[in-house]
């Protein structure tokens, strides 16, 4: 019997606890379960890791301190002066995405960052938040972000829409980048695993390849969380400083 390869089945949302208040489907799904696990793990790392903190850090305290310093350096370097006020948000964002990516690599689990609605919600949160910060800090001067300096007046007619568009596209590219990376990587893993199942004799080759791709995926998982956070910092920098 031929083995059916369904590489996209791993992305299926399945309700664990069906909830339908007021006719709205608000079921607790496998995606929500993994999000809960991610939040619990991040909280545990931050709370348990720093409990009984010593001058010489033990294993988990070291992990907590390293991730703190890593994100703090990133915010300091990229969001510029005054960016540290938003460190808690960037840290939460980074750890949530990172844990989502890494937990998705655990066999039989689910990758919530492979769903565009999740990444788009995160990106929209960044976009709306950053825009509000910019408007609150600078008022109408915030609009000068869209007017390039030293350009003839006639060209402004063309350039302002382009600038406006390239600003509004940010949440979409931010969301698509993370989602596409996760979706592509996991689909690739599943397809090669399917090859292994359908070719028992030479199955060792795709399995070997899968192992290598898996290492690449770990790299991609960390990298994409980093890119997501660093771009949020850069957007924040724009809103805070308006150059």
């Amino acid at each position, binding site marked *: 019997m031929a083995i059916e390869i369904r590489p996209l089945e791993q992305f299926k949302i399945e309700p664990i606890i069906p909830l339908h208040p007021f006719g709205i489907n608000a079921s607790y799904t496998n995606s929500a379960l993994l999000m809960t696990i991610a939040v619990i793990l991040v909280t545990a790392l931050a709370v348990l890791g720093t409990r009984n903190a010593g001058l010489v850090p033990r294993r988990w305290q070291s992990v907590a301190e390293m991730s703190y310093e890593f994100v703090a350096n990133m915010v300091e370097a990229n969001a510029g002066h005054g960016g540290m006020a938003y460190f808690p948000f960037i840290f939460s964002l980074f750890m949530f995405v990172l844990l989502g990516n890494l937990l998705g690599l655990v066999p039989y689990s689910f990758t919530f960052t492979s769903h565009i609605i999740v990444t788009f919600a995160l990106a929209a949160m960044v976009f709306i938040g950053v825009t509000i910060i910019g408007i609150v800090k600078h008022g109408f001067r915030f609009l000068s972000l869209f007017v390039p300096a030293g350009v003839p007046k006639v060209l402004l007619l063309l350039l302002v829409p382009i600038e406006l568009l390239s600003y509004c*596209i940010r949440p979409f590219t931010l969301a698509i980048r993370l989602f596409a990376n996760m979706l592509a990587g996991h689909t690739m893993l599943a397809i090669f695993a399917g090859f292994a199942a359908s070719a028992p004799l030479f199955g060792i080759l795709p399995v070997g390849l899968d192992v290598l791709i898996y290492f690449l995926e770990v790299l991609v998982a960390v990298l994409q969380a980093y890119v997501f956070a660093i771009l949020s910092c*850069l957007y924040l*920098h724009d809103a805070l400083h308006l150059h």
Partner: protein
Amino acid sequence: MTSGDPEEPLRELQRRIEGAQRALDARKTKSAPRDDTGSFGSALALAWRIGIELVGAIAVATALGWAIDRWAGTRPWGMIVMFFLGVAAGMVNVWRTITGMGSAVGYRQTKADQTNAGAAAQDQRDDED
């Protein structure tokens, strides 16, 4: 014999520390190619970023144009105009990404470039650690 005994574990420890130090040094020199995978990863991320930046801009702008057409009944002009604006915005974004101007809106050279360079140097230092 009794005076030799307490010295012996200390010498043993000294030998072990030196051995571990040598092994660590060897691993450090060997880990030079590890920098390579790091730059491979960031090159991969940059490639992804540029691709998504261009395609995403065009797709989102075109979809926006389609929505404008539906709302204003100006088919097909909104979609056509927005498509070309999307291409322009995507190109601008790609240009800014690869010239290291960040993905900043606005043409003015900013302090962001210097801080970006600072961040890159920081990464370098972190890698070396």
